[in-house]
């Protein structure tokens, strides 16, 4: 391109511009106006150019600078502006000749290249992917920052020349070589590799190898881009994990269990060994959930899961089947001893105290086991056997373990038939209360009755509750039976009161499950009130177990409500359970019943002898009445009377009788007591032997009469019962 030429005087003022100048600037030559180059300079270049030009004018040094001049288009174009001085003979500068070369396009191109370079660089460095240039041989030529960071290298220098394959784990080398082969031939190859990160973790890479093609269309080098897909891979794995695991406990779930059980069986067949299958059911889990909430229930399940893991080996499988059911596969355990050993350690681990939000939880489970022996049975049978064993274990009480035995199958069927018997008995109104007399051992007078559950079999007559024992483990049936019993008893009591039968009191048994229902006391009091049955004619018998476990608050509420309304509370089976003396103080216990087991060997068993006497004395000290249960012989009765036990109950004084026989029994007992009184032997004989200590205890457990309900508005403690005051009762 022709140059713009100009000249200026020694003072630097322009005096000539050629045509190209005019073409560039757009100023017409004939306007006669001489423009100074300076006036066309880009404002940002003015100072720099002026300084350089002044310097040249002063020193006479040639002038050369890159600067922007205003093009006729109005834009500033880059020019390379040069000027040389013309000197006269004496060497003085007389004139400057200058040129301006339009370099705008070139500068722009350079800048574009520079910007593109920067862009590439910035892309290379800001991508999280590892980007490498390789020679055709597969050696590293370049690696971006991400790559270096991933490899833990400060610069890529050390890597240059290193074969790419050396950077990969051995497992990926073969795939990498294949990919390079494809890229060398101009193709693109992609594969996934699992690598160990510099931190020691596992990462997954999605790797693409492609050629960089030269002008001749031939690959000149190769580019390899590796992308970290660990997250995606993890997500996939997580999805897979979630499908096979229980989120709450982190244990494998039922689906996974089914799958693995097949594998265990195949393996056992191949190795000609066996394994044990344990099914666990958390004891009282429903109660924990119902009374303490699901958070606590969840915490309990997590604790159990963790403990099962701790109590088993790595080769065993611990699974949460759902709800409160777990399964454990004990690998290699083909005999009962091995399975027992593992189960023992599991039960031991579970027994350790477990607390959740400051509350001590009982963390127990019942365990049923079956054994797989090679070629022995199919999966369904294996599971069924363990299930039957679990049922048997549950039947045996809490924290029990049973291994399947063929006899259990029969037992299971028996249990199932018990359930249907109970349902049938409820449906057909076959439940009947029977009444067993309680006697004042000192006077011989009738103190009252305990209502006992019986049911009428259409062919076999009256049956005791043990014929439907399994039904009581089914909470809903048990509650329904209890409800029915209470209703029938209240009805009978109502009839007797109307007929003037002096029955004393009637005690009903309440199971822990009922007490923990929350409104047990209120409902009972309301029913008594509706039937106009004075509360003091009623006793509620509970076993020691109601004080234990998580629902004790409900029990306390129920017992206190009943007690303050005048219903007396009787503690059944005293001495067999876990009740502590503090329970006797904390809960409103009016009566304790010495369990029949202590009476059985009274005369041959010194411990029993001591226990019975201690309980009798305990009752005396705490002003709690004592009833001895299961008195069958005059010997037991004599012993109890001698030691001052006030009340007795048992076959000696009569078995439980149906409602219709109660009036006759009451009359017979009354007549007998009158006869005894007339002989007046009892009290005086005790005075001789007992030295006064056991004498004079003729106080009744309650008035033998319930004829005046109005007096019953006051409880034994003399306080007016709140419910009655509230008008719930007449």
């Amino acid at each position: 391109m022709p140059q713009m030429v100009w000249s200026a005087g020694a003072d630097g003022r322009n005096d000539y511009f050629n045509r190209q100048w005019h073409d560039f600037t757009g100023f017409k030559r004939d306007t006669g106006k001489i423009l100074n180059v300076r006036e066309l300079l880009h404002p940002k270049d003015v100072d720099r150019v002026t300084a350089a030009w002044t310097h040249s004018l002063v020193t006479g040094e040639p002038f050369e600078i890159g600067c922007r001049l205003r093009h006729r288009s109005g834009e500033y174009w880059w020019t390379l502006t040069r000027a040389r001085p013309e000197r006269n003979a004496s060497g003085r500068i007389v004139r400057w000749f200058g040129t301006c070369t339009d370099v705008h396009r070139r500068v722009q191109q350079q800048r574009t290249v520079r910007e593109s370079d920067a862009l590439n660089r910035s892309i290379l460095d800001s991508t999280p992917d590892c980007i490498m240039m390789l020679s055709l041989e597969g050696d590293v030529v370049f690696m971006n920052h991400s790559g270096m960071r991933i490899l833990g290298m400060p610069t890529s220098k050390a890597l240059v020349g290193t074969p790419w394959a050396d950077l990969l784990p051995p497992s990926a080398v073969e795939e990498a070589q294949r990919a390079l082969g494809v890229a060398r031939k101009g193709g693109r190859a992609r594969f996934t590799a699992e690598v160990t990160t510099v931190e020691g973790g596992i990462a997954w890479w999605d790797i693409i190898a492609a050629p960089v093609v030269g002008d001749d269309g031939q690959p000149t080098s190769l580019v390899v881009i590796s992308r970290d897909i660990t997250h995606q891979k993890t997500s996939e794995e997580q999805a897979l994990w979630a499908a096979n695991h229980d989120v709450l406990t982190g244990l494998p779930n039922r689906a996974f269990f089914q799958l693995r059980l097949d594998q265990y069986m195949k393996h056992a067949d191949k190795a000609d060994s066996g394994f044990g299958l344990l099914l666990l059911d958390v004891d009282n889990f429903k109660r924990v959930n119902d009374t303490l909430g699901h958070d606590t229930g969840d915490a309990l399940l997590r604790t159990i899961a963790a403990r099962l893991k701790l109590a088993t080996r790595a080769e065993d499988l611990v699974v949460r089947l759902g709800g409160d059911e777990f399964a454990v596969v004990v690998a290699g355990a083909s005999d009962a001893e091995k399975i027992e050993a593992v189960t023992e350690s599991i039960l031991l681990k579970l027994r350790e105290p477990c607390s959740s939000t400051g509350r001590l939880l009982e963390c127990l489970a019942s365990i049923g086991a079956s054994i797989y022996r090679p070629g022995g049975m199919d999966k369904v049978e294996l599971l069924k056997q363990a299930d039957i064993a679990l049922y048997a274990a549950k039947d045996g009480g809490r924290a029990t373990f049973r291994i399947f035995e063929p006899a259990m199958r029969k037992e299971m069927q028996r249990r199932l038939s018990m359930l249907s018997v109970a349902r049938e008995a409820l449906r057909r109104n076959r439940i009947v209360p029977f009444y067993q007399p309680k006697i004042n051992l000192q006077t011989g007078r009738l103190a009252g009755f305990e209502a006992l559950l019986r049911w009428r079999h259409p062919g076999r007559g009256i049956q005791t509750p043990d014929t439907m024992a399994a039904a009581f483990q089914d909470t809903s049936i048990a509650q329904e039976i209890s409800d029915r019993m209470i209703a029938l008893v209240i009805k009978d009591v109502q009839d007797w009161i109307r007929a003037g039968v002096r029955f004393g009191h009637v005690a009903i048994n309440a199971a822990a499950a009922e007490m923990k229902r929350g409104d047990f006391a209120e409902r009972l009091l309301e029913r008594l009130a509706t039937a106009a049955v004075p509360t003091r004619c009623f006793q509620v018998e509970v076993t020691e177990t109601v004080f234990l476990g998580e629902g004790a608050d409900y029990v306390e509420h129920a017992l206190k409500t009943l007690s303050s309304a005048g219903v007396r509370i009787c503690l059944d089976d005293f001495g067999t359970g876990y009740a502590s003396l503090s329970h006797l103080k904390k809960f409103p216990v009016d009566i304790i019943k010495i369990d029949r087991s202590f009476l059985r060997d009274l005369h041959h068993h010194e411990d029993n002898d001591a226990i019975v006497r201690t309980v009798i004395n305990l009752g005396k000290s705490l002003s709690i009445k004592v009833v001895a249960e299961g008195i069958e012989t005059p010997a037991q009765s004599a012993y109890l009377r001698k030691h001052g036990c006030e009340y007795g109950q048992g076959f000696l004084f009569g078995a439980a009788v149906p409602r219709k026989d109660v009036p006759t029994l009451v009359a017979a007992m009354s007549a007998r007591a009158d006869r005894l009184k007339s002989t007046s032997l009892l009290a005086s004989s005790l005075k001789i032997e007992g030295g006064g200590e056991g004498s004079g205890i003729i106080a009744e457990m309650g008035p033998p009469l319930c004829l005046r309900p109005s007096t019953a508005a006051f409880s034994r403690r003399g306080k007016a019962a709140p419910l009655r005051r509230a008008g719930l009762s007449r």
Partner: protein
Amino acid sequence: MTKRTVYIVDDTEEVRTSLVFLLQGEGYACRAFASGSEFLTELLGLDPGCVLLDFQMPGLTGLDVLSELRWMEVEWPVVMMTGHGNIHVGMKAMSHGAFDFLEKPFEEEMLMQIFDRAFSSGKIGARPQPPAARPSEG
């Protein structure tokens, strides 16, 4: 009539053995019990008879047993054996329904006389029954 039965309740084996020997020789049916509770445990299964009861026994004393028999409304004649010089105890037993009492050691003749009286007293009634099984009189 069936054989006359005597129940001997005494914690001393020698006493039991010699009494059984003696009474069987006189034609009585005998059963000996080493304690009051042993006797009372069996009571409901026993045929009517006389009871020869030692006063001083560990566990249930003679008086306890006597009291229980009365409480059970068993009216059999009870002869209380007391230690020597314990007449007041014997009297107490009498006042509580014992048929008679004997101070140990006693003459065979004396025992035989008492049993003759006891068995002809007409007090040996039926087998004992649990209280609730008795018919109402009212």
